[in-house]
Every structure is written in structure tokens, then in C-alpha cells.
């Protein structure tokens, strides 16, 4: 048995220590309004990767673990876990006496059912995270054993509420899961119970009196308001009608102003599970993009510091490798080819590639497809149109809505390069691998290897690292991955985005670990207004 238990014990102590540090006595009671947009369509995240559903369902159903800032698992529904020597059997010891909101007992049967019939089948990312799980044994109601075909260290990093919400087997077994009514009237194990849901307007949750962690949650009610307009959201926060807005829902331009009022605290912590990256995906099947020199010229023509400063207001860092800087365990840019902002080099590369400027200085015409989600990609594309003009590239920005984008890029393959927002996730196998792994390329499948990059060497590198047990070796393998990726440049990472949460100073403990606002808010409390 690995000394994991010991590790876990240390983690628990550490966690107790930190909460002790806050000497303040938590205040009981009060309602908190939580801003969210777009509005969730259903209230369970077990079958979707949409952000809104994840934030909401994490308050209703607890997950096995939650993770500290360094992504070490902390106990929640699972008290601990141990991994067999060959890494093929992961045993999870469940907490006793946990009840579903309808009073039924939470058992290993629920874990087995959700893994095998829900995550592996209907959850977009779950299919890769739990790809190697062949079965889930339930020797007793409080022990679940994941039987793996290959070791998957990445899996242990993703048993948090975002990717792994456990559904009540007694309600879902044998039903058509996507249209099960419980999706709209969820029964969970979490600190808050479902009260009412007005689609497109609000969702109301109230305190779960018999939550397993006695005495919690502190809040009486947790109200979600779905406000589509960014300016109205900013007004809701400023007027005090809402107490918290995660995930850049309040425009970055307003953060400076709101911070100055001193009534809000603004944090970029709590998104270690996201690790979102703004990236350019080059379509390697396109004759022009096939030429690496053109891709490198484009890379040199972009001033990423300008983008971070003026489009992200400093909330982010210029990306140096396809991995997010927050993935401290894996990120290593030493020895990795870098593409500094150097228009002259870009022009030289274009000359080399045979694109000479014509009469009015245009070397070639290109089209970019920014991802229509939020306003950052469109702004980056607009910036690029001007930056490329300096090196003789006449860039056209093509606008379409989400469905049009997905069909054009991933089904019709009718694009030259995109400005895309890709979620890295807490482990390279979750978010980054699918962009570089040739196996993940399938026309029609969104956000997977958009550039159709096929490099056997890269495949081998990724496949070994995916099931590498030894952390040091895994780090070295991913370091080679970062070097190769930046050398071949199928994708040019622009910005390691830092998502921002803004909350009233009176709201305490809203971001205490890597899950941040995706945690279950059991420890959150609201100090009375002065």
C-alpha cells in the first residue's frame, strides 16, 4: 500500500490549520446571491462540461474529493484512497452516514453506477478521464475499487465536483439519463438542497439540515441569478444585489473601478482546475498553414504582452508552452523554443516562405475564425488584424455563432487558423493531450486536435506520459512534450488566462481551494453589513 494515507492525513491537518488561522467566528444564516451566465439548462454536471451546470451542481452534490491549491486531494465524500503497486487498482474508502437529500443512504453502488453508466458514456471529458476504467468493484457499501486497464494518475486529479458529480443510482438506474426529471429537480448529497428553478431567471437552494458535516453550511439560502448582460451583472454586484460573480462574469474593465471602492475582493485563485489557454490552432491541412515558416512568422508578429495588458488587463501571463503556468507540477519552459514579438523576423520568414509583398505591401491574405464565446477571442482577432498589417498580412476576421464555428472548424475543416479558448484542466491528459494526440482527431468532434496534427513521436511521448507512475519521470516526459510542441507549432499558445472571481468583502471562504467557486460552499458565510 502506498503511503497515500499518510499523505492524506498530512493534507487534512494542513487544512484544519488554515481554517484555524481565520480566527473570526463564522456567522450563521443569511442569503447569498450568486451571479451566473449563461444560465444552466439542467442542474447536473454529470453529463455535461458546461460551466454553469458545474457551478450549480457542485453545491447540491458533493464529490469524492476536493483539491487544495497544489491539486492534492482532500477528503469529502471519500475519507481516503490507496493505489495498488501496479497502479491498476484504486481503492476509495467512502464516508459513512452520508444521506441523499431524499433520505436514502449514499453507498459505493452510487459511485459504481455513475462511473460506468454516466461518466464513461455521456460525459464529454469523462470518456477520456475514465477511459481506462474497466470496472468498479463494490466489496462493501463503503468501499469502491476502480479497476484500470492502464495506470491513470490523471484520473486521481479529477474526482472533484467539476468533472465527477456522483448521481443517486436509485433515481437514475434504468432510466433515460439525459431526460431524467431528476436533472431538473436534483437530489444530491451536498450542503444545499434544491428549492426552485426558473429557467433563464433564477435557481434557489436552501440549507440541507442533515448534511453529513454537522453544523454546516452556514448560509440559509444560496440564490443563483442568471443575468446575460455583462453591464447589468456589474451593476448587480456594485448595487449589492449580488455578492459574488465568478469566471470573469464582471467585465475586466470594471474590476479596477470596483476594486477601488474597497468593498470587494478580487482573486484569481480557485481556477487551478480550469487552466484556460487562449491558443491559435493552425489548420495543417491548409496549403498555406502547412508551411511551418508561415506559422512561425505569425507567432513572431503577435505582441502577447500587449494582449495580456490591454485585452486581459493583466489577468493572465503570455503563454510560453501549451501548459498553463498554474500547472506548477508540469509547467517547464526552460529550453523550450520561444517566439518573441519580432515583426522583422516575421517578414524575413515570410520572404523565406516565398510570400513577397505586392504593390501595396500585401504578402498574403488570411482568414481567422475567433471562437464566439465571451469577447476576448474577438478582441484578439481584431488586434491581430492590425498587427499582421505591419508584416504585410491582410487578415479578415470571420464572425459566426458557436454552432457555425464548431461545424466550420471541426466538421467541415474549412478554416485557416482559429483563436480558441481551450481548457487545460488539472492534468495534461484532461485538456492538453486532446489537442496534440493524433488519435483524438475525428471530424465532427469539437475541440479535439483542431489542427489535425499527426506526429508519431508526439503520440508516443503523450501515451507514455499519460500512464507514467513516477512523478519525476512524468514531469521530464511532459517537458519533452512542451519542447516538441513549441518546435512543431501545430498550435501557438497566446495567453495563460487567469479567471477572476469578484465577491463582496462580507462574503468569507468563497475560494479556499483549487475548486474555488466550484466548491460546495459549505464553509461560506456572510458577515452582516456595517
Amino acid at each position, binding site marked *: 500500500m502506498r503511503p497515500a494515507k499518510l499523505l492524506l492525513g498530512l493534507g487534512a491537518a494542513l487544512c484544519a490549520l488554515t481554517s484555524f488561522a481565520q480566527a473570526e467566528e463564522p456567522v450563521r444564516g443569511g442569503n447569498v446571491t450568486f451571479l451566473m451566465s449563461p444560465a444552466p439548462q439542467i442542474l447536473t454536471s454529470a453529463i455535461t462540461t458546461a460551466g454553469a451546470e458545474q457551478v450549480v451542481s457542485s453545491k447540491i452534490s458533493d464529490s469524492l474529493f476536493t483539491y487544495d491549491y497544489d491539486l492534492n486531494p482532500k477528503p469529502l465524500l471519500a475519507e481516503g484512497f490507496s493505489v495498488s503497486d501496479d497502479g491498476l487498482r484504486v481503492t476509495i474508502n467512502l464516508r459513512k452516514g452520508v444521506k441523499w437529500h431524499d433520505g436514502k443512504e449514499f453507498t459505493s453502488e452510487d459511485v459504481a453506477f455513475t462511473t460506468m453508466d454516466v461518466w464513461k458514456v455521456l460525459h464529454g471529458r469523462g470518456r477520456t478521464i475514465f477511459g481506462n476504467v474497466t470496472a468498479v468493484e463494490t466489496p462493501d457499501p463503503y468501499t469502491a475499487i476502480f479497476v484500470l486497464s492502464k495506470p491513470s494518475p490523471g484520473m486521481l486529479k479529477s474526482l472533484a465536483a467539476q468533472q465527477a458529480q456522483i448521481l443517486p443510482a436509485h433515481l437514475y438506474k434504468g432510466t433515460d439519463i439525459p431526460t431524467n426529471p431528476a436533472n431538473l429537480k436534483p437530489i444530491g448529497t451536498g450542503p444545499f438542497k434544491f428549492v426552485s428553478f426558473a429557467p433563464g431567471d433564477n435557481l434557489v437552494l436552501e440549507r440541507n439540515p442533515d448534511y453529513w458535516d454537522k453544523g454546516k453550511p452556514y448560509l440559509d439560502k444560496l440564490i443563483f441569478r442568471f443575468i446575460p448582460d455583462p453591464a447589468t451583472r456589474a451593476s448587480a454586484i456594485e448595487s449589492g444585489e449580488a455578492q459574488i460573480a465568478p469566471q470573469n462574469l464582471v467585465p475586466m474593465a470594471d474590476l479596477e473601478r470596483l476594486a477601488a471602492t474597497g468593498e470587494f475582493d478580487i482573486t484569481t485563485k480557485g481556477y487551478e482546475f480550469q487552466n484556460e489557454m487562449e491558443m491559435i490552432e493552425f489548420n495543417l491541412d491548409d496549403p498555406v498553414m502547412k508551411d511551418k515558416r508561415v506559422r512561425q512568422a505569425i507567432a513572431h508578429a503577435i505582441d502577447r504582452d500587449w494582449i495580456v495588458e*490591454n485585452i486581459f488587463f493583466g489577468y493572465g501571463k503570455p503563454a510560453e508552452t501549451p501548459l498553463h503556468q498554474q500547472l506548477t507540477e508540469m509547467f517547464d519552459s526552460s529550453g523550450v523554443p520561444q517566439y518573441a514579438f519580432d515583426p522583422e523576423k516575421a517578414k524575413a520568414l515570410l520572404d523565406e516562405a516565398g510570400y513577397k509583398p505586392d504593390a501595396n505591401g500585401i504578402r498574403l491574405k488570411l482568414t481567422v475564425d475567433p471562437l464566439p464565446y465571451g469577447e476576448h477571442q474577438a478582441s484578439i482577432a481584431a488586434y491581430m488584424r492590425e498587427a499582421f498589417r505591419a508584416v504585410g498580412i491582410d487578415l479578415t476576421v470571420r*464572425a459566426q455563432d458557436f454552432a457555425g464555428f464548431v461545424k466550420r472548424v471541426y466538421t467541415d475543416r474549412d478554416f485557416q487558423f482559429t483563436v480558441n479558448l481551450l481548457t487545460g484542466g488539472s492534468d495534461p491528459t484532461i485538456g492538453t493531450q486532446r489537442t496534440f494526440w493524433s488519435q483524438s482527431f475525428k471530424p465532427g468532434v469539437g475541440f479535439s486536435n483542431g489542427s489535425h496534427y499527426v506526429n508519431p513521436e508526439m503520440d508516443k511521448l503523450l501515451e507514455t506520459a499519460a500512464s507514467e507512475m513516477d512523478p519525476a519521470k512524468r514531469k521530464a516526459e511532459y517537458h519533452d512534450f512542451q519542447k516538441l510542441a513549441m518546435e512543431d507549432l501545430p498550435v501557438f499558445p497566446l495567453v495563460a488566462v487567469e479567471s477572476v472571481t469578484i465577491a463582496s468583502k462580507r462574503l468569507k471562504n468563497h475560494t479556499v481551494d483549487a475548486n474555488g467557486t466550484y466548491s460546495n460552499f459549505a464553509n461560506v458565510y456572510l458577515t452582516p453589513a456595517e
Partner: protein
Amino acid sequence: MLRRVLLSPAGFVGLLLLLMIVGMALSAGYFFPKGPWALVARPYQWPGQRPGLPFGTDSLGRDILAAIFYGARVSLIVGLVATVCALAVGITVGSLAGYFGRGVDAVLMRITDAFQTIPGFLFAIVLVSILSPSVTNIVIAIAVVSWPPVARLTRAEVLRVRETEYVQSCKIIGMSTPRIILTQVLPNSLSPVIVVAAVLVATAIITEAGLSFLGLGDPNVMSWGTLINVGRPSIRSTWFICVLPGLFVVMTVLALNLLGDAINDALNPHFRKR
């Protein structure tokens, strides 16, 4: 007629404002040779914060005044072209329905009704997302949405004019139907349509601004709507990015409406002297 329009205060102010806007559109190239897209300075500069940038810069550091000058060009073109298309379709449908009546009228009018029962703005949204947001598609969407009222108005006028003696006498002397419609019926039924034309241009500009506000504007074309869309996320702090182009939308629509009123008064003066 022009003299009477200029005489009335509304007409004068309207014409003046419109000439100013048109002047801006024409002189955009001259004042801002670098075009509206150049990144001239640090973004989010307040108007007057830097010399040479009276209207400040937008979220990417583009000169807002340049954007407004070029925006005038696009917004006016969108307004005019959409209106011309709407008038063309509307007048054709209206005159055919009005003149021939019975079957033709019933069919054409039901189609007009269908277009009018679908909420215009919503229909424009669906159209633009189908054809993808480009200027031409926005113009088509606006035209498709605004021709029904023109058709309805033309039909009413044609019905009235068709009954007049001078049209009957044309029929008697055997003038061909198309000639009757073109030379007799239409010229006499178009005066109210002209008045509506001015308002149609105004509505087209507002619709374009609305579509852009919802993110359906054409990113490669700098119209006032594009600028409003760029400024929308930061409207709470740097509100001038949205408000400045908005003001120009207001001014143009005001000018067009005042002009429309003046033309209307000039055409049927009977209650001017009250």
C-alpha cells in the same frame, strides 16, 4: 418643395444635422487616412485625456473619432441601401396587390401579414445568424424586415388612386396596364411613401446598432454598431465608447425624422397654418 422644407424649423435643423453626418462620412478618408482600425494609443483613454484624441480610444486603442467618421459612412450606407431595397420590394408588392386586387391582393397581403406577424427584430437575428454577420447580410435582413409596412402603405394609396377618374379615363383610352401603373398610379401614391422612407432609414440604423449590440455586427466593417458592441462589455466604467457612437445614432435618427416631418408638412400643408 425644397424651399418649404427649408423654411420649417424642423426641416432646417434636420437637413443641417444630416449634412453634417454626410460630411463626416465623405471626409473620413481625408481626416483619418490611417483608417478606423489603426491602434493609435493606449486603450480606454478618456475623451480629451490625450491631445489629438478628442474622443479618446476604445478597448483596443483605436481612435474613436476616426471610428465614428468611418462609422457614419457604413451606418448611412446600411440605412440607405436597406431602405432602397425595402422600398423596391414594398412598392412592387403594394402596387401589384393594390392595382389588381382580388386573388393577387389576397395572396400578396397574406404573405405581407406573415412577415409582419413575425417580430421584426427577432427575424433579423435569425436571418443574420443564418447568413453569418456581414454587412450585406445585415442589409438584407433589415430590408426583409422593413418592406411590409411600405407594401401596406403603397397598397392603400394605390387602392385610392385606382378609383380616381383620371386613372379610369386612362383605362378607357386603352393605355396598357403597366404604363398606367408606372405613369399614372405610382407617381400619385408615392408621397406618403417618401415620408416613410426617411423614417425607414432611421429605423434601419437603429436595427443595425441593435444587432451589433447583440454581437451580430460585421467585425470587418467599422460601423457605429461595431463600436457600440466593442464598448458594451466596459459600459459601466468606460461608458464613452458606447455612448459616443450612440449619440451619433441619436443625431442621425433625429435628423431623419425631422426631415421626414418637414417633407410631410410640405407635401400636405393643410394643417400647417392652424
